[in-house]
């Protein structure tokens, strides 16, 4: 399959390893990965902050970059950005009175998958160690990010993949379904409430005794990791893609 990578802006600029890991996993399975260079961002930050006309060039750019016949499916290592592509892009087009853009947005959304969705639903991965060679000899816990869990209804796809990684121990995170408090500019506009939510998330992560908290969204992980770093707590944060890409030969270190 020819798979277009939507790296997402945060991974492109801040966590390039996660995009490289995504490429590695897919190439290991024998697929061809392309990176449409016109891509930039899903525009979620603008839309969630209420800046709709400002979001339009960003959304149009994404649709132009991915509305091509050049690939079979698109994938992003983010539940949140994929949810935005699938649900928010059509909304924005409708709000701003652009029916043609809406149709194209829906078409792009249909072909766009979150990483675990693609791996499990399309590529039939049920055992990461056996099928991807994933190996990560650490004790981790897992935070299911809200948009993946609720907007995309990912269920246990990410967790099930993690559990089948070689050498791994996965400790259950108490109150896992509770938001970490990130919410984009919510963390700035309502910083106090956001911090209170983060505090509880960190307490729960630390209670698991894990050396890392895994997740499927770099933005939430940056939020949680930023808090853990500030408090000097031991656990790190790590993206699902980086754990799946880790192998016996090239083991990712924390």
């Amino acid at each position: 399959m020819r798979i277009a990578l939507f790296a997402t802006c945060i991974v492109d600029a801040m966590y390039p390893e996660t995009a490289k890991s995504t490429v590695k996993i897919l190439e290991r399975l024998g697929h061809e990965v392309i990176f449409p260079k016109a891509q930039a961002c899903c525009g979620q930050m603008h839309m969630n902050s209420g800046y709709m006309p400002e979001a339009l060039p960003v959304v149009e750019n994404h649709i132009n970059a991915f509305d091509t016949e050049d690939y079979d499916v698109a994938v992003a290592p983010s539940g949140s950005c994929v949810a935005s592509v699938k649900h928010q892009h059509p909304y924005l087009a409708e709000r701003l009175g652009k029916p043609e853009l809406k149709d194209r947005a829906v078409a792009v959304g249909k072909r766009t998958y979150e990483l675990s969705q693609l791996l499990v639903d399309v590529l039939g991965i049920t055992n990461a160690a056996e099928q991807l060679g994933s190996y990560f000899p650490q004790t981790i816990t897992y935070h299911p990010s809200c948009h993946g869990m609720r907007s995309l209804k990912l269920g246990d796809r990410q967790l099930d993949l993690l559990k089948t990684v070689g050498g791994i121990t996965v400790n259950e995170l108490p109150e896992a379904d509770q938001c970490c408090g990130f919410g984009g500019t919510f963390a700035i506009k309502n910083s106090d409430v956001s911090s209170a939510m983060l505090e509880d998330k960190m307490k729960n992560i630390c209670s698991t005794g894990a050396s890392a908290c895994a997740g499927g969204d770099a933005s939430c992980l940056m939020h949680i990791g930023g808090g853990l770093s500030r408090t000097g707590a031991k656990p790190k944060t790590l993206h699902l893609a980086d754990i799946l890409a880790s192998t016996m030969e090239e083991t990712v270190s924390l």
Partner: protein
Amino acid sequence: MTQVFLGMPAGGQGNLFETEPFPKAAHRELGNTQMRKNLRHATHTIRDKRLNVVGELPDWEELRDAGSAIKNLTMANLEERLEEFEKNFTARGGVVHWARDAAEANKIVTELVKATGSNEVVKVKSMATQEIGLNEHLETEGIEAFETDLAELIVQLGNDKPSHILVPAIHKNRTEVRDIFLKEMPVVDPNLTDEPAKLAEAARKHLRKKFLAAKVAISGANFALADTGTLGVVESEGNGRMCLTLPETLITVMGIEKVLPHWEDIEVFMQLLPRSSTGERMNPYTSLWTGVSEDDGPQNVHIVLLDNGRTRALADRFGRTALNCIRCSACMNVCPVYERTGGHAYGSTYPGPIGAILSPLLTGIEVEENGSLPYASSLCGACYDACPVKINIPEILVHLRGDDVDANRDKHKIPTQMDLLMKGGSWALGKGKNIGLLEKALPLGRLVSGKDKKIKKLPGIAAGWTASRDIPAPPSKSFRDWWSDEKESK
């Protein structure tokens, strides 16, 4: 009925506004550790109860779909349903009054009470009358209103404000309740303990006299059935049943969105509502009344149909489903923001996720006082999952943020930091080559980070982030550049 709309329908008035910007109110409420403890305990208990009873129903999702569909259909033909209800309610001896806004509704109710010669009324818990500030208005007219729901009684005696639409005293624990009773009840056992049964007994003794003496009762309604002209109240304590049956005059104030087309529709909503609100299969008391029954129950039966911004909300094509709300409160019970700030932080009668959309939809977002409510959410979506009529609250929150930003565009002469960030971001993220250009500067970010490769303090609005979180030093090369170097050059 012909109607000519001149511009937007009028916005709602009354207790629908923020009292201060949400972040400021939240900051203060977060410091109230006793309240946070009470709230955490209460919301988590009710969450578990709800999940248990919802899990029992194999067709829960279909019920939600049915609830949502009935509501959408009703809203699409609201005029017809209301007129049908008016016809049937009137035919059975009831009197229908129409109120454009809070002031008109208050005036109608006051006149009806005064016509009875009474200067006291007993009340069944009602959101609509809180929304319009009826008790406060009646007081200025020399009429005393007695709340008879236990939690509303606690709030009223304590000169407090409700903080939750279903359990209005959720922010108080039982010791605090006992102290209020001891201080405020005219006749009370001075040795009253904080045992729930003793507290309930004290309330019962206090209220019983009111029920037996009252000539007038005021209620809200959970639904009105258009095809029969029936009204319904769903409650737990039996105080509602007392109010609805004992007095001579019964006045109901109900938002126009509460009408349902058919008697049979109760089937769906009586499964959805108790499970979603108190986490029970069935609530203890459901009272239905259709006009006047000769020699039985109230002989003067009135309903005030309240608009107060509902027509306005209905005109918003993305926001109108907020009117489908059945006031179950499931959204606030699962909301991580509400759990930490409590209901008072929202200012309006309607707190939590539904309040954050309903209040500005009723008043209009351009009313400055409600501008911060749609931002009072991390958009985690727990509310949407819990909503029995599937209101997509996160999507409406985002939609209203858009309206808020648009409404404020012309107000600032100097752009805010957020305006600048978003305008800059629109350029930077609007083209692959623009973000690529900026990413060339990533190594600069490594200069502002310390030896530990962390950025710990940022200026301006970003200081909210670094107040409790570090940012890692950026990588020396973006993925985009890595791809060009490693993948394309080979």
